[in-house]
């Protein structure tokens, strides 16, 4: 028995060893290197002999750099719009497509399709749709709107527009995960609530939401992380423009590292982002005891 258990345990470890190995090589080690880089003065063309330990200088520089702070602010705005929007829309779609709808399997596939689409192709399509000669502007003109906004070149509207496109592209995953969670809601609870006179809306608020709260907790963290991995979306749609209207932290980090060649400073910015995400995740983790029902 013991030998059998040992073999089973070893087999289990052997299955996960490749992943752990690759994670260590391609994620763990680069992360440690990036952390180390943030405390030295490496620029793209710094020779190894000239590398010096500078302590927290890069971090101090970050908090006194108006461009970097502005990028951080835009990142916060992006996440503040993205996370609630994708959570709410994902949940609503899952409730609607759970049951009682014709062609629900086809509709579920259609909602999930953007998630597997190529972002560059999505960007090309939306630039045509939202352009000055696109159907959106055309429709607004026909409706009598004078000087309709060109959403991807309007400095005030471009960031919410990019968020909306990112939500449209990724909401499929949230919908699928919520759908799975909704399958696990005991029917008896909803029936009992209905018998007690609860409306459909009240059932959702007081029965369904608490039961799927673990899923909500997981999706809120993953959506927050996804909202910060927005480089491809923004680079494809606006390249950080117009001007700097959509230059968020991910764009700023890439520009700092590969345009300005300031590798250490870029690493410091990445570390700041990592710290912010960890802090928010920690707050959520502590908070789950109060609002997550297991």
């Amino acid at each position, binding site marked *: 028995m013991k030998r059998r258990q040992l073999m089973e345990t070893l087999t289990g470890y052997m*299955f996960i*060893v*490749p992943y752990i190995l690759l994670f260590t090589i391609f994620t763990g080690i680069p992360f440690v290197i990036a952390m180390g880089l943030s405390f030295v003065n490496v620029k793209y*063309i710094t020779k190894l002999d000239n590398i010096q330990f500078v302590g927290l200088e890069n971090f101090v520089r970050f908090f006194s750099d108006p461009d970097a702070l502005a990028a951080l602010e835009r990142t916060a705005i992006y996440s503040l719009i993205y996370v609630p929007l994708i959570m709410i829309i994902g949940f609503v779609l899952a409730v609607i497509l759970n049951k009682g709808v014709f062609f629900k399997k086809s509709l579920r596939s259609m909602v999930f399709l953007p998630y597997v689409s190529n972002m560059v192709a999505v960007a090309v399509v939306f*630039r045509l749709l939202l352009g*000055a000669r696109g159907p959106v502007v055309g429709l607004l003109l026909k409706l009598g709107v004078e000087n309709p906004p060109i959403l991807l070149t309007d400095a005030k509207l471009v960031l919410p527009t990019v968020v909306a496109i990112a939500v449209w592209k990724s909401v499929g995953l949230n919908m699928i995960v919520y759908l799975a969670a909704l399958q696990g809601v005991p029917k008896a609870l909803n029936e009992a609530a209905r018998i007690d006179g609860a409306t459909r809306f009240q059932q959702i608020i007081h029965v369904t939401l608490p039961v799927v709260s673990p899923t909500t907790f997981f999706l809120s963290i993953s959506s927050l992380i996804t909202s910060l991995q927005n480089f491809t979306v923004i680079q494809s749609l606006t390249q950080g423009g117009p001007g700097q209207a959509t230059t968020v932290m991910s764009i700023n980090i890439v520009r700092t590292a*590969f345009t*300005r060649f300031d590798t250490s400073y870029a690493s410091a910015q990445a570390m700041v982002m990592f710290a912010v995400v960890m802090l928010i995740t920690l707050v959520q983790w502590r908070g789950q005891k109060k609002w997550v029902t297991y």
Partner: protein
Amino acid sequence: MKKMRLLSLILVFTMAVNLFAGCTKADEDNSSQTTVDNGEATTETENGQETEDTSGKKYDGVTLKWAVTETGASTGENVELIEKIKEDLGINIEFTIVPTPKDGEIDRTLVSLMAGDELDIVYSATPSLKIYQSAGVLTPLDELAENMGYDMKEVFGENLPVFDGAVYGLPAYSDIWLTFYNKKVFDDAGVPYPEAEGWTWEKYIETAEKLTDIENGVWGSYMLDYNNYYYMYATQKGADAYKADGTANFDDPLYSEALKFFADLGNEKEIQPTMGMLAAGEYPWNAFAASDNIGMFVCGGWVTSLLKNHEKYPREWKAGILPMPYPEGSEASTLVVNGNYAIPTTSANKEAAFEAVKYMAENQYELGYGRVPARVNLSDEEITRYIEEELGADFVDDGITVEDFRAGWFDAERIPYPEKIIGTADTSINQIWFEEAQEYGLGIKPLEETMQSIQERSNRAIEEAKQ
């Protein structure tokens, strides 16, 4: 049960092998190893005794390494070039393959040089060459030229890449800006084709206004939203991006004039797409060649490669060329990007490398690949012959004459300014110009605030670059 365990072990092993199957040694895939033969200029006779080389080829038998991409190593032009060098100089040149960096990736040649890899010849456009020079991996050529009695200035004039007072490369060819025009648009508008003489920006605008017919979707002018367009007017008026103390010089009124000049072409004068249209990407970079409704296009000489590609850009209209316009009241000028050959500090045979680089820079254009030589000491006869036999051969049907090419690409009186700002923090500054100019062009910021922002951000970038 035993069979299940065995099966699971096999599956795990197979998975692990597949995961690592794609990994190879970096140096097997990424670069070819070449051997360096530091052969001296001697030959060995049958009885093994060395004698002095009498072929007249001082570096006969020397092997040099030239860093090129995979594409570069297979192009006919580069292969023919090294064959000619072997024939005429006796120098063997071997390609050292360096992967082509994708967007955002590091220049592998630079990384190789900084790691100390031995290379004898590198090629780069002037702005990128500046990065190499800043990294300290390039050999200044002044001493080498002096030792050989070679007057670089006489051969290449202002095209030499000079950084911090020293020459760091020899330019093989130039990409010189031109005005390209669609003759059909002119014919339809009843406007005579412009003359190269006195072709100023003011005349350009006047002509474009006559050609523009927005209702029918015809633009008299088209330019891209590259950052250098926003300050080209100032560049052509002789403005310097840096003050004597090394700080940014964008508080010079010439720069605000330049930005307003370009933005007004679309936003006010409406002779080309507005800044908003350009920012929205409504018109692609190849719109002039791919459409038939643009009257004139001011851009680099590389556009000729689009116009002679009738397969990819079939057109029923004929093209014409003129020199780049210049500001009225200023001397005739144009923008230029030069492609240079340089010698890294890691070269083991700099004298032979200089001989090869000198040959490449002087003669590459003769290979017949449509290059505009960066030499300034070609005679009129040589220029005429080259235009007739090479440059103009693909444009006979368009009616572009030898004189048209001469005026656009071989005018020794025209001042060649670098296309983009080159200097401390130049990459950051060019990015700053792109961002701020877009905000001005889209009406987000007024001009004064935009220029102030450009000045402050540029000075910050210069300070950070110096640290």
